[in-house]
């Protein structure tokens, strides 16, 4: 978890390993972590932009971070 979203990851950890039930989606996983789903976020699931409905497979790497625009 990156930036302000890190606070939702198990007491503010930048990374964590989780044991998950099969078939969990990105959206469900973030809810499980207690993330405020109202906050703007993007996620990379195993190296590509994830949709909320994408399934998180065993051994997957999920990165969550605020969207980036101008600058």
């Amino acid at each position, binding site marked *: 978890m*990156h930036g302000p979203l890190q606070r939702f990851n198990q007491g503010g950890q930048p990374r964590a390993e989780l044991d998950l039930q099969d078939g969990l989606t990105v*959206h469900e996983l973030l809810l499980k972590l207690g993330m405020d789903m*109202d906050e*703007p976020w993007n996620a990379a699931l195993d190296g590509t932009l994830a949709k909320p409905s994408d399934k998180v497979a065993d051994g997957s790497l999920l990165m969550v971070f*605020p969207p980036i625009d101008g600058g």
Partner: protein
Amino acid sequence: MVTGLANKILRVDLSDRRVWTEQPNDLFYRRYLGGAGILSYYLLKELKPRVDPLSHENVLVFAPGPVTGTALPGASRLCVGAKSPLSGGIAKCEAGGYFGYELKRAGFDALVVQGKAGHPVYLWIDNGAVEIKDASHLWGQTVLQTQDAIEADLGEKRVRTATIGPAGEKLAAISCIMTDVRSAAGRGGLGAVMGSKNLKCVAVKGKTAPQAAEPEKYRDLARWMNTNCMNFPIAARFHDLGTGADMVGGNAIGNLPVLNWSGGQFDDVAKIDAAALRDSYRVAMEACPGCQIRCKKVVELENESYKVDRRNGAPEYETLAAFGSFMGINDLAAICRANEICGLNSLDTISAGGTIAFAMECFEKGILTRADTGGIELRFGNADAMLKVLELIARREGIGDLLADGSRKAARRIGRGAEELSMQVKGIEFGMHDPRLKQGLGLIYSVAANGADHMTGMHDTLFTQDGRGMEAARSLGSLEPLPANDLSTAKVDRVKNQHLSRNFSDSMVTCHFAPWTLRQQVDMIRALTGWDYTDFEALRQGERVATMARVFNLREGLTAADDQLPKRFFAPAPDGPLKGTAIDPDAMNRATQTFYTLMGWDPVTGIPTQEKLEQLGIAWAAAETVPA
């Protein structure tokens, strides 16, 4: 007279050293508002078609917005524009600092400069009094040296300036205008336009604060932002780190450009992002007037191989990427130094970075050799070579002379397949966001009048899932999340509406990082002027600005054929998160035609219809739409 505005435009003709003011009527202000609106009006009205952008016939406009100069956070910016020597169409961009704020407080809604001085001059605007002063002794000086010299000349401190360095004087088409030393009106070669007029600097002091029609309502808006801005995660993030805060994430999904758009992912991203900067060379965060977000980084390097003076600011995201991942460079000190060289010499960091990355790829492919570079091993990843070439560009020496006019012109001169490697639209190098990921932004890169500029486009990844992030889309009638690579009519409609909203903001010249909604910006105008301004008028203003810019480009000979992304984006990405991803050319063509249609432009030629021009109150521009 419109309450809250200066009701005066300052005109300067440098050829005959004439200074005068105009006092437009209320309808003019309601129709063109400020910033990009007033600027587009003057360029269309006063520039003869097809003039040489580097001749005395070009017109350079500095236009703050209606709210600039007031005590609102995020309202201190100004818009600068002219005919672009880089694209041949319109150049229009926004700059921060205090310059626009004080120009307004000096009593002017805009400054329009025409003609060419017989020798180097600078303008001194002191609370309404205007002088054209000799700048022969400043010619050849850097932006920072010029600032110090002008303050010494005038015996004043904290003079606000819009200045060019040596690159602008040498008419580099990728040069910019620096405001208050460290901010830039970056895109389109405006520094060269200023240089071609022998105008080294505009210096200003302004003390008269505009008075709002409804001061209490106006103060409420400022109070609201100051109380609430940190509740917006993106503003809070910028407060901590500034731009470049989430490059690691951008790299993970393929937004970060790598090796002139030929690579996939940059393994060293964490060495060059804003967090790395905080942990190494950052010494302060600064703010534009009245803004608590304070997102402007300041760096200082001492005892390093490269030294950087804190007065020259710090690299923003675009610069970190342009001189970092885009060239395969992981040396943050070198990137800070590149940012400083650009600032001191008035070079646009995006186009300078884009052009050097292009030259590096030419070198890697053997299209350029050491014979062309003067012995410089101009390979990806070579930070020393990058800095050497940057200095040469600023002085227009050796390979630098070839590159000083951007990658498109350089590619045409080089030939031998170099054109395929020139990554730009209308001659303007890309903002550092991958259009294969953000395909709606890719559409705007294609069709926007000012080329591949990331600021007037919508960033698709903001609106890919539900939540607060969707609010800006919903308020413009686009209710559901859409995939980043979608190019459906619904997406094009969203892209178009966001483009209009941004063009409206560019007329207000409010900061895109301060989380003002469209409605709040409308409330600002209502409280400032007393007009019964509406959201509808705001979007219509955005449409007017985008359409005037379109008309300007058509008049200058650009056509729908110029609304085209480079071929590289239509071939599968070779590597990284976007591996195998390509933009579908048919989908992009359809999206382009849909965009034209939704804008009220001809679906094939992109020429605005007579009805659209009449609807926008700019029927006078009709004669300008048919290319000669």
